[in-house]
């Protein structure tokens, strides 16, 4: 039985090349090295104790009294109270190492005692590769514990106890004498051993950088939630290429004990495009442009087809495989690596890309000629293929269908291509005419076959009566007037029939995806509902819904992909970039309809 820490209780730390999850007891239970999609050095989260962990915390009776990020940074602090004193653990990874004599990976863990000396315990159990092998060679060199296995090596330095591998070490932390542990890693390169004091100073320098970055966030409402979401999106962006990963984990279940366990450590163009919109609207155009640049570069080999997902260095997503012997989170098996959705055809992706390009154009960030040529080729592809069925946004592993959301996004792709062409003064009239004809034909098709007059709502697929929460995009894409009865009827129907209670929505009716068992409510859909309500003139309802959703976030303001409506437990891979991007967009939609500072929920720390 794997130790069960609620998914939403984990804190995220990262360096924009890899990310780790820290439990409230101070244990790092997930950290893939050297980058997001590599095997975990610490994989207890889904792999059981055989998969390694790194715990650091009190060795006496203690209670967690505070967990928070230092304001506008990604340094996580956990505070325990013990009889007559307190112990605080600060965790962080150093993100900015370029131009300095530092390894690519520097983990800093610093314990500080207050009131009295506190007895603490450290346990370091590194494992290497998906076969979870202990280090082939463990030595002590240059004042560091060095664990090596094939092409990966780690070095651990400490200004407190002497660290051993696979052995608990007890020690005292005295007030005024903090203890720092630094773990550095080297992949196919020489190890650079970093003294604890240097590592600690680098983390402090990094914090200044994060604060400076966060100071540029231009939002007025819900700033704490928006800033945490944008910082999380930044942490989930692989800086060497600019690729945003959907989540840093694999196989956190969409149902506890179920088999809906997927690997999200890859980059989806859809997420990148939603990120573009979120960053652009929050006053971060450079990050928005970087996402588009990554996307156009990564998709170069498959043009004009847009792959569903890429690895962080732009290669095709690896085939899906199961890890034998991995017990899974709370016995949720199998644990998978790779993602089978990579081979699907998803029409909606083109709409996200062209809409993102339009948002940049509309905001005055003109596209390069090459970028426009790629966008135009994507629009040509949509105009030629929109009549084909696709797998849809939810990546159901069933027969392709004519999904209404996909058709709406195809319409969006053509509409935005036409707008960009007009804004650029593009003179290729014949091509624009072709796009216009296809766009109008699509609109007629969607209205004829994708609308159910009985429910007065757009449906999930042509000639179907089921609903799909992805169609909540309708008021945002300007397919019809936001206040039209068809749009309002669709929003209301989805809200009513796909409700999972409170502010939560299922993405589609439970039990209709061909997989065994149900799943949780899909959190991005709730934020889309906020946007839809705001756009259809119901800003008070939208704001109230948003407030409820902010309170449903984890203790650190992080969100998974789904939530168990009965327990409020976060489900699915965590934290989820799509949810955080949707949160930012919802907050910005509210900003357009409510006055500044009229709603500010802050998370106590």
């Amino acid at each position: 039985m794997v130790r069960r820490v609620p998914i939403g209780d984990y804190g995220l730390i990262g360096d924009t090349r890899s990310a780790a999850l820290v439990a409230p007891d101070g244990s790092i239970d997930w950290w893939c090295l050297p980058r997001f999609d590599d095997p975990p050095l610490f994989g207890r989260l889904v792999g059981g104790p055989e998969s390694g962990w790194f715990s650091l915390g009190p060795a006496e009776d203690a209670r967690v009294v505070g967990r928070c990020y230092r304001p506008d940074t990604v340094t996580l602090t956990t505070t325990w109270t013990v009889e007559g004193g307190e112990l605080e653990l600060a965790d962080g990874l150093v993100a900015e190492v370029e131009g300095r004599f530092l390894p690519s990976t520097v983990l800093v863990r610093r314990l500080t005692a207050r009131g009295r000396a506190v007895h603490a315990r450290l346990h370091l159990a590194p494992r290497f590769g998906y076969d979870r092998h202990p280090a082939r060679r463990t030595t002590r060199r240059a004042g560091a514990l060095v664990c090596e296995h094939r092409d990966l090596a780690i070095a651990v330095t400490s200004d407190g106890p002497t660290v051993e591998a696979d052995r608990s070490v007890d020690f005292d932390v005295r007030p005024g004498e903090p203890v720092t542990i630094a773990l550095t890693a080297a992949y196919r390169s020489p190890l650079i051993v970093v003294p604890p004091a240097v590592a600690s100073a680098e983390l402090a320098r990094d914090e200044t950088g994060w604060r400076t970055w966060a100071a540029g966030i231009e939002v007025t409402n819900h700033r704490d939630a928006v800033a945490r979401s944008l910082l999380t999106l930044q942490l989930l962006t692989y800086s060497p290429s600019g690729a945003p990963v959907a989540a840093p984990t694999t196989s956190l279940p969409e149902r506890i004990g179920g088999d809906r366990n997927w690997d999200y450590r890859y980059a989806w163009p859809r997420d990148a495009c939603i990120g573009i919109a979120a960053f652009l609207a929050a006053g971060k155009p450079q990050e928005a442009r970087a996402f588009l640049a990554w996307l156009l570069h990564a998709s170069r080999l498959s043009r004009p087809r847009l792959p569903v997902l890429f690895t962080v260095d732009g290669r095709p997503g690896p085939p899906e495989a199961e890890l034998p012997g991995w017990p899974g989170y709370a016995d949720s098996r199998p644990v998978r690596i790779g993602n089978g959705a990579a081979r699907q055809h998803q029409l909606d992706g083109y709409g996200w890309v062209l809409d993102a390009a339009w948002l940049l154009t509309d905001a005055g960030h003109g596209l390069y000629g090459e970028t426009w040529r790629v966008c135009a080729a994507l629009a040509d592809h949509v105009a030629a293929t929109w009549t084909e069925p696709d797998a849809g946004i939810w990546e159901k592993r069933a027969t392709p269908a004519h999904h209404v959301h996909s058709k709406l996004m195809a319409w969006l792709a053509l509409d935005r291509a036409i707008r960009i062409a007009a804004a650029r003064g593009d003179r290729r009239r014949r091509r624009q005419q072709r796009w216009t004809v296809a766009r109008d034909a699509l609109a007629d098709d969607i209205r004829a076959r994708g609308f159910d007059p009985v429910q007065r709502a757009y449906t999930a697929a042509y000639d179907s009566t089921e609903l799909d929460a992805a169609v909540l995009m309708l008021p945002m894409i300007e397919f019809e007037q936001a206040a039209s009865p068809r749009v309002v009827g669709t929003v209301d129907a989805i809200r009513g029939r796909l409700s999972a209670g409170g502010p939560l929505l299922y993405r589609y009716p439970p039990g209709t995806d061909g997989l065994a068992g149900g799943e949780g409510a899909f959190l991005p859909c709730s934020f889309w509902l906020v946007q839809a309500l705001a756009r259809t003139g119901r800003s008070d309802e939208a704001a109230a819904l948003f407030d409820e959703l902010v309170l449903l976030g984890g203790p650190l303001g992080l969100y998974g992909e789904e939530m168990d409506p009965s327990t409020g437990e976060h489900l699915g891979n965590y934290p989820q970039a799509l949810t955080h991007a949707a949160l930012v967009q919802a907050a910005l939609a509210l900003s357009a309809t409510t006055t500044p500072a009229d709603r500010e929920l802050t998370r106590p720390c």
Partner: protein
Amino acid sequence: MDWAGWAVFGLVATTGLTAVMIAAQLAGHTRLDLPLMLGTITTEDPDRARVAGFAIHLAIGQVFALFYAAGFAALDRSEWWLGAVFGLAHAAVALAVLVPLLPGAHPRMASERAGPDSTTVLEPPGLFALNYGAATPLVAVGAHVAYGAVLGIFLGSS
């Protein structure tokens, strides 16, 4: 040393190499775009960068042609296959040594160590430029072998 032959056929061979690389790129075999990669040293706009990069690449090609010519002179023979062997070695050095060094010198190329402050526009190529597609090493080897063969044929005949 036949300077006129070096000037003309160095240009021909480099143009041929560039053409092979661009053709492979347009055919979807690789994302490696040498003119873009070199040109973004001077400008961020991809279209302008390609023009500058093509000129830079021609100049670099001329320099390498000088080494090929010196090699042929040292061996006192010049054959297409000898040029191809030189091209093979050239590609190996380019992929294993020169391209991986680029992130350290290129102002707009990220390194594998890039952090959130990075304002670069090109992702790092990685070993053998594999980040630009699995077929990239094959395409680069083919292009450089063609470059060497052209020089082997024409520098010998001139």
